[in-house]
């Protein structure tokens, strides 16, 4: 690791001030990606601002028909939250599939979406469930927040404070995890409310998480796994690496989408 100064403020205002004090400052959430990144010297922040002491960023609560999850809510907390399990079970289940138990004891929702790893799980949930990303200074739709591979609309010094998930409809998430890292090789979150359908795909695209418009249109016409027969995203747009070719990932997306739809069709 390169050297850095470390801060652990307990107030959000102090955290923001520490981040504003240097262009090279970085917030530290659960650290399950950032610390390995620092170890590999792939990042060299001058200052690390640990957000774990900021109480305002924690908590999971129902506000009317919206589940509000603090940015520093850990995966284990979302996975086991009674209100999340009762009102948004697909999201709780997704949180329980991230990494492994020790990683879930540290990793956070805010850290995951701010990093926007193309293989992370939460971005698919945010996009499919029409989440609103709340930052210290504004609110963004998930579609506006995720802008590309490891890219978000966050400005320097801006942090995610909470994510609002509107309730209603039904959804499910199907993931094919990489056997070693447990990151999604392909993860598909399908959500529907009446005729409104959203299909969000993570793990597969070179552009990061995306809505699969063709699948949404096909499912709007007829909701069932058969509606997706023959449908695949373009293999040339998919990630090709040592874990799998673009064609392999396109096939995985199609299979995960059909499984998710089949499960929802049975449930509904």
């Amino acid at each position: 690791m390169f050297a850095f100064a470390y801060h652990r403020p307990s107030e959000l205002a102090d955290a923001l001030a520490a981040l504003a004090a240097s262009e090279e400052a970085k917030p530290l959430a659960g650290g399950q990606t950032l610390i390995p990144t620092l170890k590999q010297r792939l990042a060299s922040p001058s200052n690390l601002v640990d957000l774990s002491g900021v109480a305002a960023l924690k908590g999971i609560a129902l506000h009317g028909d919206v589940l509000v999850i603090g940015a520093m809510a850990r995966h284990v907390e979302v996975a086991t939250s009674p209100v999340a399990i009762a009102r948004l079970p697909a999201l709780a289940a997704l949180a329980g599939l991230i990494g492994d138990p020790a990683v879930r004891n540290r990793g956070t929702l805010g850290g995951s979406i701010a990093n926007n790893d193309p293989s992370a799980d939460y971005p698919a949930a945010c996009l499919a469930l029409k989440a609103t990303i709340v930052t210290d200074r504004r609110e963004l739709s998930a579609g506006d927040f995720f802008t590309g591979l490891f890219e978000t609309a966050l400005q320097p010094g801006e942090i995610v404070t909470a994510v609002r998930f509107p309730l209603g409809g039904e959804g499910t998430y199907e993931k094919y995890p990489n056997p070693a890292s447990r990151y999604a090789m392909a993860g598909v979150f399908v959500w529907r409310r009446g005729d409104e359908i959203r299909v969000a795909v993570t793990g597969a695209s070179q552009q990061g998480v995306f809505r699969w418009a063709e699948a949404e249109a096909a499912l709007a016409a007829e909701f069932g796994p058969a509606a997706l027969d023959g449908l695949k995203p373009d293999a040339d747009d998919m990630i090709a690496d040592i874990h799998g070719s673009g064609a392999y990932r396109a096939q995985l997306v199609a299979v995960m989408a059909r499984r998710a739809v089949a499960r929802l069709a049975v449930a509904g």
Partner: protein
Amino acid sequence: MRDVTLTINGAPVRVAVDERTLLVQLIRDDLRLTGTHVGCDTSQCGACNVLVDGEAVKACAVLAVQAEGAEIVTVEGLAAGETLHPMQAAFREHHGLQCGFCTPGMIVAGIDMVRRLGPELDAATVRAELEGNLCRCTGYHNIVKAIQAGALAMAGAVPGSGAVPVAAE
């Protein structure tokens, strides 16, 4: 440098560390508690698992300064004097190890499972929960048996009493 104050295996510790120091480096290099191992150093193998405020974490993916004020328990802190912790005793009883390198992390993972899921763990649950712990010699079968038995023993239940079939496949 920065002072870190924490509790390790029940003893208060105050030590000056470089901000870059990993928790596992503090434990092994500064405190000389070498029971916590570094296998992969990439968050995958779980050999460096320790309990931080009761929860299993990968000490290679946590900075020592993040543990300020925390209660850390390593494998050295589990036994009560000469009496092994029930999870340790179960690993011995069921031969849940071969070379032993992964064992400290496995034991910590097992204790964390009991904390979150209770003492009655079926084999499939234990296998799924061991997602983040790699063993490269025993093949997991006896590790699963050991964690199931250790979980029951932690709750004071008698293994073989029929509460849960151990290593039911």
